[in-house]
């Protein structure tokens, strides 16, 4: 063994593994992008190939696969084999979940960590057990904790949505489901409170409100639509140039086939420069909150929105007003998208009769 091995423990030196014949990796003499493995990794994978060849499903394989996963969390064969061994040994999967708590945070962006978690929680040993509610709500809490570390992590969010739609949407958990969804909305409000620009949370809200069934108390969809529009308006007033809130507002309107023109009164103050005497004639209108003090006006999403309102009017006069707004975006407020705004003008004018 080379000198580097004094600090690392090799399977080759471990009598417990003496019955496994290590299997070296095949490699072509002139391969593409060969990896210069560490001795530790080479040793572990030699034994892993040996284990696979022998079909060994003993408890020690859990240690071996854990070691490989820690060295290379993307090693999907090790994950796959580990899961088979867990099932073969009838291992307590809740313990495996606790190990995953540590690995998930460590390898937050590795797909396999989340995939393995889905397999575990879906297994009847956990999801159909008497304590399934305990396990499932613990998952929701765990995800919330992960999102403190990385609030926009894609895997984490999609895992949460998968959990909610797979285990809390069928109605078989009755009152408990209601409670979970109620808490979900409160948690979303709090997350948006913390960072109004976190698009992932907005997305999650859309999922909860519109894409995952209808909650008790939300049966009147008209009320829900109004509530969501008001919510978006309120958040826009706090940070008028926040695209996440505007996209959400558009999403609610599009999804329900509501005309943008319903929002003209609200949008107008955001699409123009603040007039010096604005403070004086400001009337508090709860339905149409005005831009927060100090917000930079006009803001791009509002100009764009108002132009869309005009464009939907379809008369020559309307289209010309829309074109004026697009021009202001192209030449002054959003010059990076100059070519796009010019394209919008061209498209809109083309449909007008000559």
């Amino acid at each position, binding site marked *: 063994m080379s000198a580097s091995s004094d600090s690392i423990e090799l399977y080759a030196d471990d009598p417990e593994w003496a019955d496994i014949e290590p*299997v070296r*990796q*095949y*490699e*072509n*003499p*002139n*391969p*593409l*992008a*060969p*990896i*210069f*493995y*560490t001795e530790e*990794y080479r040793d572990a*994978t030699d034994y892993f*190939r040996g284990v*696979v060849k022998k079909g060994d499903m003993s408890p020690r394989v859990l240690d071996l696969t854990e070691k490989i996963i820690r*060295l290379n969390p*993307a*090693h*999907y*064969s090790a994950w*796959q*084999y580990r899961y088979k061994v867990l099932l073969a040994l009838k291992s307590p999967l809740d313990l495996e979940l606790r190990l995953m708590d540590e690995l998930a945070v460590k390898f937050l*962006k*590795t*797909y396999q960590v989340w*995939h393995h978690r*889905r397999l575990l929680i879906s297994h009847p040993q956990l999801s159909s057990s008497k304590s399934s509610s305990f396990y499932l709500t613990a998952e929701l809490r765990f995800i919330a904790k992960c999102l403190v570390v990385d609030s*926009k*992590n*894609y*895997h984490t*969010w*999609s895992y949460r*949505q*998968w959990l909610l*739609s797979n285990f809390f949407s069928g109605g078989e958990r009755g009152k408990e489901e209601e409670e979970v969804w109620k808490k979900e909305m409160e948690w979303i409000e709090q997350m948006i409170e913390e960072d109004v620009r*976190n*698009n*992932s949370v907005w*997305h999650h809200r*859309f999922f909860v409100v519109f*894409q*995952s069934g209808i909650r008790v108390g939300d049966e009147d969809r008209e009320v829900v639509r109004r509530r969501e529009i008001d919510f978006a308006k309120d958040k826009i007033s706090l940070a008028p140039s*926040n*695209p*996440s809130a505007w*996209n*959400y507002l558009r*999403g*609610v309107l*599009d*999804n329900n086939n509501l005309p943008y023109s319903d929002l003209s009164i609200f949008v107008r103050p955001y699409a123009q420069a603040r007039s010096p005497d604005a403070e004086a004639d400001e009337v508090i209108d709860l339905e149409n909150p005005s831009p927060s003090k100090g917000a930079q006006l006009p803001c791009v999403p509002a100009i764009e929105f108002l132009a869309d309102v005009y464009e939907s009017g379809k008369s020559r006069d309307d289209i010309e007003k829309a074109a004026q707004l697009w021009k202001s975006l192209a030449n002054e407020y959003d010059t*990076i*998208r100059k*070519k*796009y705004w010019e394209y919008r003008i061209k498209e809109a004018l083309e449909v007008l009769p000559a």
Partner: protein
Amino acid sequence: MSQGEALPPLARGGHTLHCTRCVAGLPSSQTEIDSSRLALAFYCLGSLDLLDTLNAKISDADRESWKEWIWEQQAHGKYGTGFKPSSYMTPEDASVNDEYSENDTPHLIMTYTGMLSLAILRDNFDKLDRPGIIKFLRSCQRSDGSFSSIPDSTESDLRLVYCAFAISTFLDDWSGVDIAKSVTFIKRCRTYEGGYGQEPCAEAQGRDCHLFVFLHEMLTVLGGTTYCALAALHLAPSLPNDPLPLTPRERHQTVRWLIQNQDDSGGFRGRTGKDADACYCFWCGASLQILGVPDVLDPIALAAFLARCQFKYGGIAKAPGEHPGQDFVDTSLEPSADPFSPDPYHTYLSLAALSIHPPHTSDTTWKLDALDPLLNARSATAAWAREKIPAQ
């Protein structure tokens, strides 16, 4: 002087060097690449193809042995035939005729990148097991229309639908996929913003760059999911009762969302409110091309952003940064050292973006051959694949 004249040169020599160094070998800090080496190889070969340095800088002997290595990854067995990421699970004494084991199955993304890599190397594909590949596609399709990366896995999402559709296009044979089911799946992934998420209801577009290994992006994302959705919808033969890939209203909304992602730096971001990233210059730029509106973006700003992502010793990083003198293949690189080091994935996708959206400049270093936006390959390579891969 036009703005294009202010661009620094595209460091073609440096980028070639970066890719040839990666192909020659990777340090142990990149061990995670093990289970996706064929994808990495594709990004290296694709870069050399776009830079047109594959023939000049690589010997005939090397190109031949690379082909041989890629063919070694083609494996057959109970789920059909496909390509494995590498020989990382292959025993030393294995013989080519062995069937793969349950723990060393081919992978759908590797099958796509393997076939494309062979087309880059101008292979004649007489070793391709066509019926086996069709069988493999069937084994990977799930009841909801999506595809899994390996048979019987629950890992399934939009990028895998794209790979299956690209492979069917290469073969000019769609008998391995239920197109209508997949199209339904893709449409379910559409989000309220106008992009597409990995799976139904997920947030639009891909994920972020991992700190030091771009692998997570390369593999778990295969880039923008919106690109994967749009390219797949446009590759699919049109269905009798669903002639348009997108309704005019959807198209309008998606164009808006894509162009919103170009930020003031000139680069594109992958999700609303995130920072610009070189790879999204391709995922969004190619999507706009697919939707027939390539001219709505600003190519000079795009090139200026990518110019700043260039690493001084070659290669392109995900974002402009300090690049403190270390790159991806530097063996001294500690895993968490530099989130902005260059890698073949961002290098290839930046070049691909530039070949779709070339900046107007008299500097010829920026001139690249055209790219097939649906198959994500240099046009000549895509044409080769379409000609040589189908059964003759």
